C-alpha cells in the first residue's frame, strides 16, 4: 500500500511541476491547490470519520471504535493544520493578507478549534472508559456545527475564496489537466489517511 502511495505522490508532484500549465492570472502560484485542496478534504473526512466511530462506540461500547475515533481526530488535526497553513500562504500571495476571516477561513479555524478541544478533552480525562464516553459525546456534539458553517456562514460574509470544484452552479471552471491532477491528489491524500488509520499501534 505504501509503495502505491509513494508512486502516486511522486507522479502528482512531477505532474504538478511539469505537466500542468500555469493558470491565467495566478501563474505557478495556483499549484498550491494540489496540496491545499487534498489536505483540506482529508481534514473534513477525518472529522466525519471520527464522529462516525464515536457513534459506533456509543452504540456498541467497544474500545476499538474509541481508538479509531481518536486516531481519525489526531490525523485530522495534522491535516487541518497543513490545509490552514497552505491556505494562508496562498491567501497572502493572492489576496495580500495571511488571514482575513473569509467564511472558509472561519470554517477551517472552527475545525481546528474543535479538533483541539476534542484532543484536549481526551488528554484531560485519565479513566479510559470515561474518556471514551465523553470524547464520543463531544465528537457528535461538534458535528452539529457543520450545517451552520457550511450553509449559513457563507451567507453572512462575503467570500473571495474560489468556489469548490463541485459547486452549486454545477459547472466545472477548471481545465481538464488541472482537474485530473487535482482529483489524483485528493485520492492520494485520502489513501494516506486510510492507510494511517489501519496502522497498528
Amino acid at each position: 500500500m505504501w509503495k502505491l502511495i509513494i508512486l502516486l505522490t511522486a507522479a502528482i508532484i512531477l505532474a504538478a511541476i511539469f505537466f500542468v500549465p500555469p493558470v491565467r492570472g495566478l501563474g505557478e502560484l495556483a499549484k498550491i491547490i494540489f496540496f491545499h485542496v487534498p489536505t483540506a478534504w482529508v481534514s473534513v473526512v477525518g472529522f466525519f470519520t471520527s464522529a462516525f466511530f464515536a457513534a459506533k462506540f456509543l452504540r456498541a461500547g467497544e474500545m476499538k471504535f474509541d481508538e479509531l475515533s481518536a486516531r481519525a481526530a489526531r490525523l485530522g488535526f495534522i491535516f487541518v493544520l497543513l490545509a490552514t497553513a497552505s491556505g494562508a500562504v496562498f491567501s497572502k500571495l493572492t489576496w495580500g493578507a495571511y488571514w482575513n476571516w473569509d467564511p472558509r477561513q472561519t470554517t477551517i479555524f472552527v475545525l481546528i478549534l474543535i479538533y483541539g478541544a476534542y484532543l484536549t478533552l481526551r488528554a484531560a480525562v485519565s479513566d479510559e472508559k470515561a474518556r471514551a464516553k465523553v470524547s464520543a459525546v463531544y465528537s457528535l456534539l461538534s458535528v452539529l456545527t457543520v450545517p451552520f458553517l457550511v450553509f449559513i456562514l457563507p451567507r453572512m460574509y462575503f467570500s473571495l475564496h474560489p468556489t469548490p470544484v463541485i459547486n452549486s452552479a454545477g459547472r466545472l471552471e477548471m481545465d481538464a489537466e488541472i482537474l485530473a491532477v487535482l482529483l489524483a491528489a485528493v485520492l492520494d491524500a485520502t489513501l494516506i489517511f486510510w492507510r494511517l488509520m489501519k496502522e497498528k499501534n
Partner: protein
Amino acid sequence: MKLSSFLQAAAIFRKDFLVGLRRRAAFAAMAMFALTTIASLSLALGGAFVEPKLLAALLWVVIFFAASAGISGTFEDEAAAGTLSTLKLYAARQAILFGKMFFTLASLGALTIFLLPVFLILFDAEIARLGIFSATVLLGLVGISAAGTLTAALTVSASAKGGLFPILLFPVTLPIFLPAISLTEAAFTGAEFSAEFLAAMIFYDAILVTAASILFDFLD
C-alpha cells in the same frame, strides 16, 4: 411515589436554586467575573467611542466568559459533594438534564440582567430596538445553557477543568454568537435586521437542546 419527569426536573431546579442561594459562590463568581471584564474593557478604552459592531461583540464575549466561569461547575460541585450518584439514583436522567438546564438558563438570565445596565452605562450605549435585543439575548442564553449543561457533564471526570470548559463550549456555541452579534449590532444602531439570523438562532437552539437530551443518556 414516583414523580413525573417534569416534576422531577422542577424539583431539581428548586434544589439547585436553594443551594445556589445558600452558597452564593457560583453566582458571585459569575457576576464579579462579568463586572471585572466589563471594567477592564471600559478602563482600557478610556471612554473612547466604540463602534456598535465592536460593542455587540464585546457584550457577547463578556457573556460567554462569565457564563463559562459560572456554569462549568454545574455537575462538578455536585460530584465533589458526593451527591451526584444519589441524584442519579432518585431522578430520571432527562429530568436531571432539564432541571440543570433550566437552572443554568435562570442563572444566566439573572447574570445578564445584572451586567447589562453596567455595560450600557460604562460604554455609554443605548438600545434602539429593545424587542429584537431581548429576543436575541434570550435565544443566545438558551443555546449557551443547552450546550453548557452537556459540556459541564462532560468535564466532571476531567482534570484542568477551568481551562477546558470554555475551550469545549466555544466551537459548539459559535453558530449562536455570530448571528447574535449581528442582531445585537442592529439593536444598538436601530438598523434593519435580518430575520434569517433570528430563524437560524431558533433552529440551532432547537438542535442543541435535542442533541443535549439525546447525548446525555450516553454519559454516566
